[in-house]
């Protein structure tokens, strides 16, 4: 059983406090962006964009550039390319995503294999390395978070309308196509923010799981976002402590905590009615 000491002891380590702040902030940004993402049916897109950031990370390492820059460029470029290929209409969206993200990830593995000596750092980007986060990383992360959250704060109505009813929104004069591209770019930036916390492989869980859990128990959009934020901020804190006590991998522990809460919500919410809502109503 964790006692008060078990909770307070790790706070003596600056790296642990930094990790707490960083992962809670990442959880907040992921929950907000993820709420729109699950309603837009873009969960797979989140997985694709995180993998496509990999070549950017490796290239940044090779060029001794900041990894945030490399990851952001690669992810945003892939997001826009997927949007463009899909909009041309020759291929389904999931097909375009499958081709482009596998290609980008292969490019990352290819570049990685060219590095002469074993480089442990890069494994951190695959599986996360939140305990190694520095003050500079924390500042970069905060700046990017403010950019993403600020954009959503300004355009929440526009994103909501174009997510719910793109046709009605476009007829009312909202720039639906530009909003779509902008949202893809926001997903890409959110992934960059999250890479150091949970790594490329597990980012999609940070994005999708809190929002998916909230969707199980929400009747309104405001409630969905609020619950997603609560889950998104609390789970990394629980996960960090759990990984400290258990000496387990932090990123994976955080994701497991989120998944456990999702499973509980799935069992407890005895309301399949929303899933059935698209069937014709009874009279």
């Amino acid at each position, binding site marked *: 059983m964790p006692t008060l000491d078990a909770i307070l002891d790790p706070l003596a380590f600056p790296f642990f406090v930094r990790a707490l702040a960083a992962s809670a902030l990442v959880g907040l940004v992921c929950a907000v962006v993820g709420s729109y993402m699950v*309603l837009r049916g873009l969960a797979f897109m989140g997985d694709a964009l995180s993998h496509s950031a990999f070549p950017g990370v490796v290239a940044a390492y090779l060029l001794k550039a900041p990894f945030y820059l490399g990851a952001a460029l690669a992810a945003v470029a892939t997001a826009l390319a997927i949007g463009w290929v899909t909009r041309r*209409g020759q291929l389904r969206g999931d097909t375009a995503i499958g081709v482009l993200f596998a290609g980008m990830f292969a490019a990352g593995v290819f570049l990685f294999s060219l590095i002469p000596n074993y480089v442990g750092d890069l494994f951190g980007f695959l599986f996360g390395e939140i305990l190694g986060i520095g003050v500079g990383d924390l500042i970069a992360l905060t700046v990017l978070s403010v950019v993403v959250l600020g954009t959503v704060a*300004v*355009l929440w*109505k*526009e994103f*909501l*309308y174009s997510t*719910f*009813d793109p*046709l*009605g*929104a*476009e*007829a*009312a*004069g*909202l720039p639906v196509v530009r909003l779509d591209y902008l949202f893809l770019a926001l997903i890409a930036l959110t992934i960059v923010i999250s890479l150091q916390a949970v790594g490329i492989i597990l980012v999609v869980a940070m994005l999708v799981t809190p929002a998916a859990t909230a*969707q199980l128990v*929400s*009747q*309104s*959009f405001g*409630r*969905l976002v609020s619950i997603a934020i609560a889950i998104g901020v609390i789970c990394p804190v629980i996960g960090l402590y759990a990984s400290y006590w258990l000496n387990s991998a932090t990123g994976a522990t955080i994701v497991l905590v989120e998944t456990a809460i999702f499973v509980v919500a799935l069992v407890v919410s005895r309301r399949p*009615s*929303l*899933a*059935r*809502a*698209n069937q*014709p*109503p*009874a*009279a």
Partner: protein
Amino acid sequence: MTGLPAALDASDQLHQLDAGGHVRGPAIRLRDVTAGYDGRAALEDVSLEIARGSLLAVFGPNGGGKTTLLKLIAGVLRPWTGTVETLGVRAGEAARRIAYVPQAELVDWSFPITVWNVAMMGRFARLGPFRQPSRTDRDAVTAALERVGMIDESRTQIGRLSGGQRRRAFLARAIAAEPELYLLDEPVTGVDVPTEEDLMALLTIEAEAGRTVIATTHDLAAMSRHFEQVVAVNRRIVASGHVDLVRDPDILARTYGGHLLVLGERAVLLDDAHHHDSASGSERHFHDQGKT
């Protein structure tokens, strides 16, 4: 040369003002419009004028181009050839003065959103980014929900509504937008009779107030009860004019290409040389696509 005066001529027509300073001229004007999707034309050579304050129904078979016509007027679909003018400007430029209600099947009813917030979306476009809904917007939403009889369901998630209530909620969104032009895709399809009567009474009031109401419909009986003007569409404009057109068997035959139709109390068997199977015949009318 000759091109320039002609262009000035057209814009003169668009900007004539009446005594009250309002733009006169038709609400909608399509000239020689052909449009479609993925290289396939859904409407061809359409020319049409719709007067302001009209209460007009667009009818015709599935795949006949009804929704395409609405999208062209809304400016969300660009014509391949020809021009579309809406409320005196190029289609799409008057978007803030338009309310568009999509078909019920296109809506994700499992979306976690309440009736109140659906109606509030009618205010979003005019608010623009940065500005949050104010007292004025909340008052407009309240008034709209009261007019459609949905104020008691404000906090209900839309998937829990009946079919009639769902249409009422979306009409509330349109009313809250305070538009000059309503574009409604199948607004009374599959709703109960009281809802149909209520919604059509509301739309009639809007038209009498000088706003233009254009609705697509499948239901010829409902159409002949509620609308003054109709446009029959089957890839082309088959006919347009007074609602009595619906009683002309020849026009119906050309619109639907020959099917059993129930009109008012009468069943009218039109000459059907094509012999569709009865299950799909009432829903699908694609046999005109191969003809010229």
